[in-house]
Every structure is written in structure tokens, then in C-alpha cells.
């Protein structure tokens, strides 16, 4: 790990770290927002909604993230004229936005499945009691079902965020200068493997911090269970 290498690429590595954090943060958040309607559609009595959401989830969970990324990035380049005519080319032109879109769609599928499983695990009686109290649909969802579902979903959702941090590395393959992108650049100039070790350290720090954050969240959100003696 030569000092010269650090001096040349140290700052860029940190910039790459910022890009990775941006990619993951934005896509996970947007994905979470998208996941709720999809999860509800999966549980809906409407066949069309169920079918469409099932297909969506099946596609994005059953195909590799890299293939999805190529589909969006190179595929959108093919339809440049279409996008230009509807004024959206500025979005698909940028590799960062293409990655953002792909990652969002991908994580939304995984999060929707987690959420669906969690919601299904909330006892039927909860919903029935809420309806018996005369509460309306949205209120039942947001005040009764979701809070309980989120506690079950917390662990898997944390896992999904970690998977997204790792998955985001493929952005480097389509010219985005995230951690891996900068590492590739530095390796191409120096042939020094230690640049990848630096990248590894950065990813380990990211994942480590996130795990801590998630454990903290878990403890805070389940305090009521601890008090009741259910949780340790």
C-alpha cells in the first residue's frame, strides 16, 4: 500500500465511496416506497394486480442484477430517439441514473417479497379486530398491520440493504465511478492489487456501520417487547 498510490487515488476513492452511498441510499429508499404498493398488490384479491405484481417480482428476483443493468443501460441507448421525443433522454443518458433506476426496481422486488411475507405473518385476528372497531382500510394498514409487520421484516430488510451495498459494485461495469469504479481505474494505471484491498476495506466499513445501525434500530423498535419480557 504505497504512499504514492494513496496520494494519487485516496481522494478519488472517497469520492467513489460517496457515489456508492448515494446509489444505495436513494435506491433503497425509493425501492421501499415502491415495495409497499407491490406487496399490497401481491396480497390483493384482484387477479390482474396479483398477476402483474407476481410477474414483476419473479422477473427482478429471478434474473441477475448485472443482466438487468445491461438491459436498462444498453437497451435505453437503443431507444434514444423515443426517449428524446418524450423528453426523458437526459435521464437515460446518464449512467448513474440508469443504475439508480435498475437498483430501485430490483430492491423494490426483494423488499416487496419481504414485506408481503411479514404482513402475511400478522395474525388475521388483528385485521378482524381493527375492522370490528370500525377502523378504515388505510388506518388499519398503517396503524395496525404495518407496524407489526415491520418488526418481523426488519432483519430481512437489513440483509437486503447489505445485499444492495454489495450489488451496487456492478455500477462500475457501466462507467459509474463508485468504489469499484475508482479501484478499477487505479488498478488499470498502477497494476497494484492493493487498490482492491482498499476497496474491500471501504466496503467492510460500510457493511459494518450498517449492521450496527440496524441492530440499534431493532433494539429501539422492539423496546416494547423487551419491557413486556418477550424480547431479551
Amino acid at each position, binding site marked *: 500500500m504505497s504512499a504514492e498510490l494513496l496520494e494519487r487515488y485516496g481522494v478519488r476513492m472517497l469520492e467513489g465511496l460517496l457515489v456508492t452511498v448515494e446509489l444505495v441510499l436513494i435506491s433503497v429508499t425509493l425501492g421501499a416506497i415502491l415495495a409497499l404498493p407491490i406487496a399490497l398488490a401481491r396480497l390483493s384479491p384482484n387477479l390482474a394486480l396479483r398477476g402483474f405484481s407476481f410477474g414483476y417480482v419473479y422477473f427482478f428476483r429471478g434474473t441477475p442484477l448485472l443482466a438487468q443493468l445491461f438491459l436498462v443501460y*444498453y437497451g435505453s*441507448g*437503443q431507444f*434514444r430517439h423515443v426517449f428524446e421525443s418524450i423528453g426523458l*433522454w437526459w435521464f437515460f*443518458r*446518464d*449512467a448513474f441514473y440508469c443504475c439508480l433506476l435498475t437498483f430501485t426496481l430490483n430492491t423494490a422486488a426483494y423488499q416487496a417479497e419481504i414485506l408481503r411475507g411479514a404482513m402475511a405473518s400478522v395474525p388475521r385476528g388483528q385485521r378482524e379486530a381493527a375492522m370490528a372497531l370500525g377502523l378504515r382500510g388505510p388506518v388499519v394498514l398503517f396503524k395496525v398491520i404495518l407496524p407489526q409487520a415491520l418488526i418481523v421484516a426488519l432483519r430481512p430488510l437489513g440483509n437486503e440493504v447489505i445485499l444492495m451495498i454489495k450489488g451496487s459494485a456492478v455500477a462500475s*461495469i457501466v*462507467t459509474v465511478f463508485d468504489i469499484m469504479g475508482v479501484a*478499477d*481505474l487505479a488498478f*488499470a*494505471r*498502477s*497494476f497494484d492489487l492493493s487498490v482492491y484491498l482498499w476497496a474491500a476495506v471501504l466496503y467492510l466499513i460500510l457493511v459494518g456501520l450498517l449492521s450496527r445501525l440496524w441492530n440499534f434500530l431493532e433494539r429501539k423498535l422492539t423496546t416494547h417487547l423487551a419491557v413486556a419480557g418477550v424480547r431479551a
Partner: protein
Amino acid sequence: MRTMRTIIASAVALAVLTGLASAKEWTTVRIGTEGAYPPFNFIDSNGELQGFDVDIAKALCEKMKVECTFVAQDWDGIIPALTAGKYDAIVASMSITDERKQVVDFTDKYYTNALTFVAPKDTDITDVSPQGLAGKMLGAQSSTVSAQFLEDKYGDSDIKLYPTQDDAYLDLASGRVDAVLADVGPSNLWLAGEDGQCCAFVGEAVVKDDAIGIAVRKEDTDLKEMFNKALAEIIADGTYEKINEKYFPFSIY
């Protein structure tokens, strides 16, 4: 006593083996090339490696009286694969640079290259200096001198790097980058083809004296000398000229 003898025996064996390794007789030379860089090296429809680089390498091997085999390797890993022993020489339009010389050795040059910008025909770019291209999106193949040049000199522009030259041209055609910096040979070929109809050269060549050489491992000085000698021979006896003519109407030496 027994242990002592085993130790001496193995030491002798090791010395003999390493001795043999250094005084290597070159009967076959494995040549590494990219295979994705027309007209210098590419894979034809039969899956065979063709191109200027391949022809030069074959001519050199003939003069050196060795058998040559070719290995295709992705550009990004082409030097690490050489140092790891996957092949013995790189003949892939590789520019001789100080940075690369820290890791490998080069023979004398076997042609001269220029770096030029390519842009869409309807571009508003007139000035290809760093100031003129400030704020623009520029593309190049990663691990090349073009990429290095952009990184070092064009700090005010956005730079995008691609695993192959074709990917860079693809993004230029689709409008993701405003201009691509590349070697003049491949750009010329691409612009003449169907996919390059959108674009044209823009501005003067930014580098005109880029020397292209054959890369060998630092310890293979004998191989390097063999290549240099053979290179001088094919230039002297007209073989080089014949190969040059096959691909370019002007001399690229």
C-alpha cells in the same frame, strides 16, 4: 546424515532447474492480444485472430524461427496476464509508456500512433483543448493511453471509461458521451463503417508520436532482443511494408 544428503540433493536439483529456467531456449512463443481492436487485432467470423498486429507477430516469429501461438485476453487484464505467465509477449497495439515500463519491458516501436477525438457530425465542439472541452462528457477505453491522457489533462470534463473500444463508440453513437478520444487507426475504420456514419474526427490529433511496441516480461531480455532483431529484419527486407500496405494506404511506422 540422510537428511543432509536429501537437502544437498534437493538444493542441487533446484539450482539445476532454475538454471535451466533462466537459459531458456525459445522454441515456442505465446503471443497475447486483445482481439477486439480492428484493424489491428480482431476475431473474424471463423473465430480466428486477424489483424495488423497478428500479421506482424507472425512475420516476426518466422524470422525468429519460433512457433507462435496466439491467446486472446481482455485489455484490462492483458499486462497482469503477461506477468503471471499466461503468454510471453503482448502484440496488441500497446503504447510504450513510462508507467507501463515499471511493470514490463518493451521492444523497439513497430508503428506510430496518434490520438484523436471523434464526435457526432453535428457537434458544436471546435476546440479540443482542455478548456474547449470543459464540462463535456468524454469517453475512452479504460487502461489505454487515451484514458490516461483524458485523466491527466482534461480535469474539467466528465470522463467515462469502457472495457472495450467498441463500447466507447457505441455510447458515442447513442449520445451518452460528447466525444471519444482514441487511436486514429480504429477510429478511422469505425468512421468508415455503417455504425460510424453519425460521426467524424474533430480537431487536430492531440498526441502525434505515440510509439507502439511489443511488451515482454522484464526478465525475458533475450526474447526482447530476438524481437528487436527480427523487427529490424522485416523492416529491411520489405515484409513490414507489405503488411502495412495490406491495412493502410500510408506508412504507419
